[in-house]
């Protein structure tokens, strides 16, 4: 992967000045490159990675296996995007194997997620079946561990 893209992936808030120094480029080159990625839709957003269990806000997340009937012309895309447009839906993936779409849904409580599956998801024409798995705990998300494991007993000064 491009080195700049990799650095942004690790820390989207790194300043253009720092990135420029680290990569031996000018600040303008960095800004132009980032802007062109944003315009081309390569970079689709910047988000904080939040340990939600530390926020004391209750929520429920479910992974839902969805089987659908592909459509002539659109294949799985139209239904996948139709599902993806619901704000409750965090991610949608087309999968190989025993089902077609893997859908991650987040809601305030079990009832809202259940109702989303019943009322919205399962009733979409072309959806054949759903299997819902509720998550119990998040250990790692977006490549980030949800607990610190940094263990630094290095001597403060060493040869």
């Amino acid at each position, binding site marked *: 992967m491009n080195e700049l893209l990799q*650095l942004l992936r690790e820390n989207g808030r790194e300043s253009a000045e720092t990135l420029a*120094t680290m*990569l031996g480029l000018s600040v303008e080159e960095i800004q132009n490159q980032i802007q062109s990625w944003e315009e081309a839709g390569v970079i689709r957003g910047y988000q904080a990675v939040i340990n939600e269990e530390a926020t004391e806000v209750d929520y429920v997340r479910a992974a839902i296996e969805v089987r659908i009937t592909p459509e002539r012309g659109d294949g799985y895309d139209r239904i996948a995007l139709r599902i993806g447009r619901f704000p409750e839906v965090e991610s949608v993936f087309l999968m190989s194997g025993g089902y077609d779409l893997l859908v991650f849904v987040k809601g305030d409580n079990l009832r809202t997620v259940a109702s989303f599956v019943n009322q919205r998801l399962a009733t979409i024409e072309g959806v054949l079946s759903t299997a819902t798995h509720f998550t119990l705990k998040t250990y790692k998300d977006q490549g980030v561990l949800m607990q610190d494991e940094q263990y630094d007993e*290095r*001597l*403060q000064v060493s040869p």
Partner: protein
Amino acid sequence: MMNDSKSPHDFVAPHLKNVPRSGIRDFFEIVNTRKDVISLGIGEPDFITPWHIRESSIYALNRGATSYTANLGLWELRKAISEYVNRRFHADYDPATEIMITVGVSEALDVAIRALISPGDEVLYHEPCYVSYAPVIAFAHGIPVAVETHADDDFRLRIDQLEAKVTPRTRVLMLNFPTNPTGSVLHQKDVEDIAAFAIRHNLVVITDEIYSELTYEAERVSIAAVPGMRERTIFLNGFSKAWAMTGYRIGFSCAPAPLTDAMMKLHQYTMLCAPILAQKAAIEALANGDDALAHMRSTYRQRRNLMVDGLQAAGLRCHIPQGAFYTFASIGHFGMRSHDFAMRFLEEENVACVPGTAFGACGEGFIRCAYATGTAKIETAMERLRTFTSRL
């Protein structure tokens, strides 16, 4: 007979008494009394060993890997090292007779010196350098002869300076490129010239290439691969820096069979073998560690750029180090000695760096700042350095 010893001090062997304590040790004790120091003085990676390597240690332990190994080390590891050294350094070594696994490069260095020299033999090494070279030579009753390197030459080793120090008693030339503390590297022409010098004076070369995987823009060259050098070279390397495995204590030596055999005697009767868990981890590092290494290497390079930029912005003069994870910046024009600069920087801004004199007398006028630390800390430290130098 009367015994005129008066204190335990008198029992210590004289050749040991003459070896000074490491200057780093003294500085460490001062730094250690302070809180919330940003330390640029740490000579090891801030990365934890990549998880796949740690995980393989757990697996090995689960399977009961708790025994001794062959003195030379696990066959599988020696074979992997043979392939690795061939692939990365273009030098051929037979895993059966020419490769030995050691407890870090430190042990390899010690047994190599002891295997080669007799009391009174002279050993050439370049300064500024890693703190253990001169002591290890002295422990073997050899005479350490420092060859100075200079910022003007990017701290590369010059033949005229070597020629000025070589004598009929010189037996060994020690190399460490990329160099701790300067980050200096050798180019192809340099190693060829040094090889010709070694052959001319019939010297053995011990080349400590522990930082070789952390070489940035420069091409990585090893004297072991220069034609005619194989029979007079002991090539040392290890896993500490490349794969962030310092605490595993695992390194290795590659040398012609008669030299390996001699080193093996020392290793066999003192260390016996390197720890098996570390050996298992090293196998994993070589088999599957390329990606983790590439990631750490590019991260160090980015941080180096950040630090060199910060040092220069604060008015220090610094060549761009091509390897390892150290900058060696000149502070002479501030009219202060290295030690005083480091002490005041610590006291006034709570940032620790290492005075250049810890690495030899010719390190006077320099400080070593390691960039084996996170970018946020480097930026804060460089900001504080600007504040500090603006007062000088």
